[in-house]
């Protein structure tokens, strides 16, 4: 019951938007898509939804190609938010819910539950254009999940939300996952992906540059971060071979090292030189990996 993308390529004229992308998206997990603007995330989603046909390759979900036959099992939150501005929240959800195969009563019950949960029950009969952007986004999220889809595609679900609302939506996403929905989502915000996803894929110019389980990706990356806070000048540490990045901070410095062994060398270097407040060895952040993988390819 996994979603499989098998050597997917999509070309628009001479432009290749997605280039030989192969991924297995495990069931009942959250899968993260990362990539700069124009990396091919939205095109990939549109192909999964059947809105675009891949030029090459096959997409299969539950062994069949995705199409309108199971659109009631799929939820979609597009990157460009879209609702009927002149319709009330209620009418909007009834229409869109019915198109996803729901009955009117079911829509109304679910809608009340969700509005209550997002603490906006008073907006039920308001027109969408009267709502603030953040609240419109909540409504947009409800349209994507109201029919309890088995596969949920969220294209930048948290962009433009304040931190309180981000937490609210994040909790909702996690809860939907617990209920057994497979979720594919894209984001620019690495910390969201790190927090939510077990597996992920970094797309760069249509090609997957990193793909796999989050832990494995971090392990394979090899490089580690070392944080040194000391009372003496630590600038000379950047001269040590194997230090790939050096950043001075008021308390000391933050270094990126090629491997764990280098951190041992650094530790030896600073011991005895003076008072060391902090010495810490950290896993690389996804942000580090992203910049390295995507930034490096620019060169």
């Amino acid at each position, binding site marked *: 019951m996994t979603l499989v993308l098998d050597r997917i390529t*999509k*070309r*628009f*004229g001479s432009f290749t938007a997605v280039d030989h992308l192969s991924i297995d998206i495990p069931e009942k997990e959250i899968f993260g898509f990362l990539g700069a603007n124009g990396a091919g995330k939205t095109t990939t989603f*549109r192909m999964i*939804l059947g*809105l*675009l*046909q*891949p*030029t090459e390759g096959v997409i299969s979900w539950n062994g069949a190609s995705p199409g*309108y036959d199971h*659109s*009631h099992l*799929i939820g*979609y939150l*597009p990157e*460009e*938010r*879209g*609702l*009927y*501005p002149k*319709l009330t929240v209620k009418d909007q959800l009834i*229409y*869109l819910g*019915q*198109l*996803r*195969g729901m009955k009117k009563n079911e829509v109304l019950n679910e809608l009340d539950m969700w509005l209550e949960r997002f603490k906006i029950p008073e907006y039920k009969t308001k027109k969408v254009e009267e709502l603030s952007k953040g609240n419109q986004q909540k409504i947009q999220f409800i*349209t994507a999940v109201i029919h309890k889809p088995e596969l949920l595609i969220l294209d930048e679900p948290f962009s433009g939300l304040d931190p309180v609302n981000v937490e609210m939506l994040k909790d909702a996403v996690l809860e939907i996952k617990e209920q057994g929905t497979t979720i594919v989502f894209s984001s620019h915000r690495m910390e969201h992906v790190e927090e939510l996803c077990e597996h992920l894929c970094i797309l760069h110019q249509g090609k997957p540059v990193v793909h796999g389980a989050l832990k494995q990706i971090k392990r394979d990356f090899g490089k580690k971060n070392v944080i040194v806070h000391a009372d003496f000048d630590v600038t000379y540490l950047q001269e040590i071979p194997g230090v790939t990045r050096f950043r001075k901070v008021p308390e000391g410095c933050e270094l990126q090292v090629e491997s764990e062994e280098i951190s041992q060398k650094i530790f030896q270097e600073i011991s005895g030189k003076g008072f060391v407040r902090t010495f810490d060895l950290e896993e690389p952040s996804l942000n580090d990996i992203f910049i390295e993988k995507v930034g490096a390819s620019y060169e």
Partner: protein
Amino acid sequence: MLPMNKFAIILKHTYLSQLKSKSFIIMTVISLLIIVGLTNIQNIVNMFAGEDQVKQIAVIDETNEIVQLLQQNLAHMDEELKIIDYDGTLEEGREQVQSGEYFALLMIRMDEEKLPAATYYALDLSNSQIPNQLEQGLRQIKTGMITEQEGIEQEIISKMFSPVPIEKIALKENAKTEEELNQARGLVYFMIFLIYFAVLIYGNMIANQVAIEKSSRVMEIIVSSVSPITQMFAKIAGIALLGLTQFGLILATGYFSLLANQSEMVGGVFEYFGFSEVPIGTLIYGVVFFILGYLLYAMLAAMLGSLVSRIEDAQQIVTPMVLLVVAAFMIAVFGLNDPDSRLVVATSFIPFFAPIIMFVRVGMLDIPLWEVSLSIGLLVATIFFFAWIGAKVYKGGVLMYGRSTSLKDLKKALQLSKKDA
């Protein structure tokens, strides 16, 4: 879920949301008011006419014989005009016109040839109808006097002035008589007007709706739940239903309003438009061409609407389509007077013009069945062609966002819907 159900959901949504919209309600109410007004035109005219007072014309007649004749002549011409044989002097009469007691003063005398001549005094000369009527009355009297003086018989005079009767007889078999043609013209004119307006109003409505869904980006959600092609046809059907509702309301209101006023309308405007005896063939052709015309232009409108990203651009991109409709209408109006001309015959086979122009021909003339069948056949084939290509363009177009509003985007949209774009 069956696509048919989704078709029904979209159709219902399109129909109801438009039906409840303010612009639709206002437009319908205004149309209904106009229809009620038109069908009561006789009453309205009478109402205003009734307010007009009887106009009194004072006449000073030096001959002492003309005034009675004038009174008789005008009595059956215009009830609102009353001729008073005035006894006072010219000065007194002029004063009384100025004070408003009389509308005008007419001074009649004999000229050198012993024929009547007159002077007309009124406050101002803005009313030309009354002097004209007076002149007509006087002319009749003058004619009578001349015939008497010269000893010509009254009969000879009436022979001279009677119109020459020309009977027009069509030699072609089954051709319509003059009377029938005049009747048909009214009916056909009325129906091409309906087709013209329906195509313009509902075509624009479709293009606008598609543009609204695209500009609000809700389109992407819709097409992820239902195929764009189902959506397009459901929308076209929904608007068609809306059109039928609106036209049904207008026609029903018109019919009942006419029924209520039948006594006044018989023999009047009503008969002129040929509504008293509607030929059933013309009606059937009218309905057929109405539906086909709507379908063709609705398909075009949906296709064009899917190409723009902003509502403001929708008007611009449907302009070529609107021009086609307007051209068809103009040729048709010309064709009403000359339905056999080459231009009309040729354009009646061009699918974009056929719904209006072929209808003019079948309504006015007896066209061989093969010609009508050919025209309808071409029209239906074009509709299928545009349904096919329109669906493809629509499928790509709804995902396309850009600033351009040119028809070149057609190609781009087609590419987007293909596999190997």
